[in-house]
C-alpha cells in the first residue's frame, strides 16, 4: 500500500537512457515520460528497478492515476506513457490516453501459467527487435528490460509487427496476477 503523499508525488522523470540501452538514440530535449507500474508484485518491482525511483505504483484502485491523466494539468510535456499493469488497469488507462489523442506504440501481453510465461509483443519491427533480449532471463527481470526500452517506445512507429515467445515459470506468490500488460503510448 502507498500513502496518498507517496502516490501524489510527481512521477514525471527525464526520459533517461538506462545503461542497458546505451545504444539507443538520445531522447528529444524536454521529452519526459510518465511511468506506471503495478504495486506489490515482483514484475512491478523489476519494472521500477530500471528507472528508480520515479515510477507511480498502482494498487487495487487505479483511480488516482486516472484522475491525474484526465486532468492533464501536468501532462503537456509528457512524450511517453509507459507501464506494466494488470490488464484491467491497462484498459482504463488506454481509454483516457486515446481520448487525449495519443497512439499506442507498444503492447506486451504477459500470461503466467503453471508451466511458464507466454509473452505476446506488438510494436514496429525495429522496436520489437530491441525489446526481445529482455525476455532472455527466466525471472522477473524481463519487466525491467521492458522499462529499459522506454526510450525506444518514444520513437516507435505503428504496431505493425508481432512476436510470441515463452520462458520458464519462476516462484511467485500464489495471489499474484496471472496476466500483466506492458504498454507504451506516445503523441
Amino acid at each position, binding site marked *: 500500500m502507498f500513502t496518498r503523499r507517496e502516490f501524489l508525488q510527481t512521477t514525471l522523470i527525464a526520459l533517461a537512457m538506462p545503461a542497458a540501452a546505451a545504444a539507443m538514440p538520445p531522447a528529444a530535449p524536454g521529452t519526459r515520460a510518465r511511468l506506471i507500474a503495478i504495486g506489490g508484485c515482483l514484475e512491478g518491482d523489476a519494472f521500477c528497478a530500471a528507472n528508480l525511483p520515479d515510477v507511480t505504483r498502482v494498487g*487495487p484502485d487505479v483511480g488516482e492515476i*486516472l484522475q491525474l491523466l*484526465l486532468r492533464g494539468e501536468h501532462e503537456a510535456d509528457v512524450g511517453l506513457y509507459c507501464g506494466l499493469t494488470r*490488464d*484491467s488497469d491497462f484498459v482504463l488507462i488506454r*481509454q483516457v490516453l*486515446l481520448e487525449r489523442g495519443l*497512439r499506442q506504440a507498444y503492447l506486451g501481453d504477459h500470461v503466467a501459467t503453471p508451466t511458464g510465461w507466454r509473452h505476446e509483443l506488438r510494436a514496429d519491427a525495429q522496436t520489437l527487435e530491441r525489446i526481445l533480449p529482455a525476455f532472455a532471463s527466466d525471472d522477473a527481470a524481463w519487466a525491467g528490460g521492458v522499462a529499459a526500452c522506454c526510450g525506444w517506445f518514444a520513437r516507435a512507429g505503428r504496431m505493425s509487427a508481432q512476436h510470441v515467445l515463452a520462458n520458464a515459470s519462476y516462484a511467485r506468490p*500464489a495471489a499474484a496476477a*496471472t496476466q500483466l500488460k506492458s504498454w507504451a503510448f506516445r503523441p
Partner: protein
Amino acid sequence: MTTAPVLPPDVSRAEFDQAIGELGEVVGPAWVFHEEPRLLGYQDHFAIREQSLRAPSAAVAPADVEEIQRVLAIARNRRIPLWVVSTGRNLAYGAAAPRKAGCIVLDLKRMNRILEVNEKHAYAVVEPGVSYFDLYNHLQKIGSKLWIDCAAPGWGGVMGNLMDRGVGYTPYGEHFMWQCGMQVVLADGTVVETGMGGQPGSTAAHSWRYGRGPWVDGMFTQANFGIATRLGIHLMPEPPGYRPYLVTFPREDDVHQVTEIIRPLKLGMLIPNAAVTVELNLEASVAVSRAQYFSGEGPLPDSVRRKIMADLNVGMWNFYGALYGPEKIMDNNWKVIEESFAQVPGARFFFGKDRAGEPAFGYRAKLMRGIPNMTEFGILNWMPNGAHVGFSPMAAVDGKTALEQYHFARDLAHKYGFDYTGEYIVGWRDMHHVFVIFYSRDNADQKKRVHELMIAMIDDAAARGYGEYRTHLDYMDRIAGTYNWNNGALMRVNQRIKDALDPSGILAPGKSGIWPAAMRGTPQP
C-alpha cells in the same frame, strides 16, 4: 479531405468534409475529431459484435449551449445524426460509441463546470462533463459537508449516469430520484428549463422538481428527445456517523431468505442505503482471477467455488450495507439488522476492522459513503483480456423472485459456458439485478456465445415477466421490443414524441430502440 473510415448514412465524402469544416468553425478545429487515431477513444472496446457496426464518423466537442445550438443547426441542415455522450465511459453498455455507425459523437466532456454548490439546501448544479471524481474533489476542496452518491466507476459522469437512470450505493443511490431541475436543448435549438426553472427568476428551481403542470424531466432520460446540458442534483448531508458492514451467507439458495429479510428492513429504513447482495464469483473477481483456481472451460465446478469461498473468507452471497447516523442510532439499528440476518443459518458478520486491506470491502465501504474510486474494474481480471456486458432485469424485493432470477440467469449462463457473476442492488421496493457477463475481448467464440446468451436471457426474462432497466447498444431494440403491451403502445407514444421534437431525426437514432421515422421499419444492424 477527411480520412474517417465511416461516413454518416446517405452523406457523401464531400458533404461530410464540408460538415467537418463547418463544425470546426463553431467549436474550433482542435475540437473536431475525424482522423482514425482520434476516433479510437470513441469506440466500444468491449464490442461483442463487429466494432464497425458502432463506429462513429467523427466527434465534436462543444464548449457551451450556444455551440451546441450551432452544431445542431449543421446537423439538421446536412441530415447528419449526432450521438450524445457526457463522459462516454460506461464500458459495459457501449462507452461513447453510437448505436448507428456513421453518427457524429456529440461529446459534452468540455462542459465540465460545477455551477453551484448550495450547502444550505444541499444540492449542486452541474454540466454534463462533470465526473464523480470532479464533484467529490470539489466538495472536498471547498470544505463541504455534503456527500455525493457515485456509481462504481468514479470517472463516470454525474449527469450521464443519472440521465441513463444509473444507481449508486448511499441512501441517495437511486440517482434520478434526486434530480431537481434540468436544462435541455431540443433538436431545433430551443433551450428549455424544466420544473420550477420554467419561471424566470425562480428561487426553488433546485428545491422543488415539479413546478406546475406536466413534469417532463423523465422524458429526456434514456431517450433521444433532447440534449440535457445542466441539472440540479440533491446531495446528502454528512451524517454524524457511518459504519459499513458485510454479512456473508454460505448457500446459493440463501438469496431467497436474505431477500425476504431485506424487504422490511428497507421499507422500514433500517437499511437506508442502496445495499448490494453480491454472488460469490463477482465478489471474488475483485481480488482474484478465475485462472488462479481453474484452467478448464465452462463454469467453475462447485468444489472450486467452495475453495474460493474459503480462501477469501466470503459467502455464496455477500450483503454489503451501511449504518448512518448518531452512534446510538447505529447501535440500535444494528441490533435489529444482526438479529434479522442471524436467522439465516451460517450467516457471518463483519465490520471494517475485520476486513482491513481487502479490496472488495474497501471499495464497497467507499462507495456506500460516496467516495469515488475505480477498484471495481479489477473484476475484469477474472478472465484474460476481460470485458463485460450487463444483463440487468428489475426485480421486486422478493425472495422467490430473487431466487428464480438467479436460477434462470445461472442456468442459461452455464448452458452457454459462462460463470454466473452477479449482484442485486437493493432499492426501496426494487432490486436491480445486474448479471455482469465476463468474456475475453480477443475471443471470437466467447463473444458469439455472449451474444446468444444475451438474446436468450432477454427473451426468457420477458416470458417470465421481467424487463431490463438498461442495456448495451446491441440490445436496445430487442429489449424495447419486450415492452410491447397493447401492440407496442409505449413505443408508439415514444415515436410520436420523437417525431414532434426531432422531425429531422438527428438526435441519437436508436437510443433505447427509438428510431426516427426515416429509419423505422428496417432492421438496423
